[in-house]
């Protein structure tokens, strides 16, 4: 009873951020049911991660005995080394290592380029509209819903005409193009929410397009830029389709290489190596997720909001 009377005023005071809704009673059957549901759901979500980890630490003979969920009787790190260094994709046996560095290159270049481009777009669309700028934005938002397959082939032809197909700059351009709708929306909404006096005052002082951008808008948009970085880093690292089509053999990203390692094995299927490779590929976005915490959720929600 006391807990109920104590929490009641807190609900009103803290507003929408704090948990609310049906109030907690003492340990009733309903409460037990709530936790039972959540724990079972949590087990379902954790099961694949658990299976990945234990499988990657088992030797092949032990895996063949079944017992998917059991801890390894004998822990071995061999599969991890093999996945990283010597696992084969077709004729090359260099493991995931080259894919990791390719993904690193692609991500490190694409993230800043796509974000800077989108930031300028959002800034121009909020403060420096020109004839047709709203129409362009409308087309861009339409682009967010277009299935990629509709534009992929002409884009291949266009990029090969200028000699960028299957090159590193090519894949960076592709990521910039397809990240642009959501990111531009993100930045436009952010800049539109700033007080217009800020911009007007700078204009009165005689500052121009780039001056206002670099001296006022850029420093202010750090929080939203962090959201964009999280969104793009995970998105580009996890990309598979563009990597297969546009990156070419030299720049094949980690996800594509992982899929090749797992699906084109000749002879014995090494489940433990496959699972170690899978964890290695998921490691970077998972690290981003756990480090960024609530920013991650904010990024998804912000990206999903419609214009």
């Amino acid at each position, binding site marked *: 009873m006391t807990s109920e009377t104590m929490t009641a005023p807190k609900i009103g005071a803290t507003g929408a951020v704090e948990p609310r809704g049906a109030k907690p009673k003492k340990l009733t059957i309903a409460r037990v049911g709530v936790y039972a549901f959540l724990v079972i759901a949590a087990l379902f979500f954790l099961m694949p991660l658990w299976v990945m980890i234990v499988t990657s630490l088992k030797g092949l003979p032990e895996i063949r005995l079944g017992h998917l969920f059991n801890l390894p009787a004998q822990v071995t790190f061999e599969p991890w080394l093999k996945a990283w260094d010597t696992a084969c994709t077709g004729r090359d046996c260099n493991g995931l290592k080259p894919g990791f560095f390719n993904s690193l290159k692609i991500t490190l270049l694409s993230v800043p380029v796509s974000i800077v481009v989108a930031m300028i777009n959002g800034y121009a669309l909020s403060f420096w509209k020109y004839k047709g700028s709203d129409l362009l934005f409308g087309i861009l938002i339409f682009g967010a819903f277009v299935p990629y397959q509709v534009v992929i*082939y002409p884009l291949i032809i266009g990029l090969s005409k200028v000699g960028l197909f299957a090159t590193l700059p090519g894949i960076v351009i592709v990521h910039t193009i397809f990240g642009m709708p959501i990111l531009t929306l993100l930045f436009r909404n952010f800049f539109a929410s700033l007080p217009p006096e800020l911009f007007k005052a700078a204009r009165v002082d005689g500052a121009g397009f780039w001056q206002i951008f670099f001296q006022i808008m850029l420093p202010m948009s750090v929080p939203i830029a962090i959201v964009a970085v999280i969104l793009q880093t995970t998105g580009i690292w996890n990309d598979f389709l563009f990597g297969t089509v546009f990156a070419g053999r030299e720049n094949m990203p980690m996800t594509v290489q992982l899929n090749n390692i797992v699906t084109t094995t000749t002879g014995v299927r090494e489940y433990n190596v496959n699972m170690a490779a899978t964890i290695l590929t998921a490691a970077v976005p998972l690290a981003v997720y756990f480090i960024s915490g609530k920013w991650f959720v904010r990024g*998804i929600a912000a990206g999903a909001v*419609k214009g």
Partner: protein
Amino acid sequence: MSQFAQGSEAAVSAPTQHPRRARRKFNVMSIVGTTPMILTAVGVFVVCIIFSFIWSFTNSKLFPNFNFIGFDQYVRLWKSDRWNISVGNVFVFGICSLGANMVFGYLLAVFMDQRIQQEDLFRSIFLYPFAMSLVVTGLVWQWMFDPNLGIQSAVRQMGWTDFQFAPLTNQATAIYGVVLGGVWNGVGVTMAIMLAGLRGVDSEIWKAAKIDGIPAWRTYLFIVLPMMKGAILTAFILQCTGVVRVFDIVIAMTQGGPGIATQMPAIYVIQYITDRVNVGQGMAAASTMLLPVIAVIALQGLLQWRSKRKKEKAI
């Protein structure tokens, strides 16, 4: 009225000495700055789509050409088993995964909203799969669904010896295996968006419902749910774009198999522009994929136009 408006506009722009000239100059910078956007919007989302559409009426094979053959590619498309199965699959996949995603997403959000201990921990657990790529998701579930060493065998070893759970090996059930993987990956996002929506509902509603003696579950289902249209729509649109694009998870999990049981339109297009070297056919499929998007946009435009007309009439 119009004179007054003009006057106020002039007053606003007064501080700059030469408003007209200044404005023109800065517009140039604005256009320069947004060149990538202009190129993307026009060059990719208009010109590329037009070219896809044009090539869908040609007999392009390895390289695109302009030998027009009318609707032949579309006729061939809709006669193809592979395509018809793909279209059926994307509907089954879409309806099942959207349904499961929204229902479980809301359910999880409601349970998370019960002032529980360790809310952040549960949230992290429900959401972490989304940080992993769909390729990773597909490969993990493929391993768990392995008929000889996966969940099926593990449960049998625990004593339930005729336990059946290997959806990917059966043509009729493979698509539901993919649905399960997809829902596992994405339901946490729906939960997070719905939870934010739940917390945004006015607390007075809860007090009023309590006074009226309405049980909590009915409040959640019949009062709060209709009030969260924004959150529901956001989650729904996010999942919808994923459904039309579904590609990675199928490639990783089943490669479209067994047979062609889990083929998808997105895979069909890629196959025809790569391995099957028939660009015309691929472009016909791609242009067809655009239809639902255009239908939705047209519908939205119509609704907007009608509500605008209604408003005008009211005035």
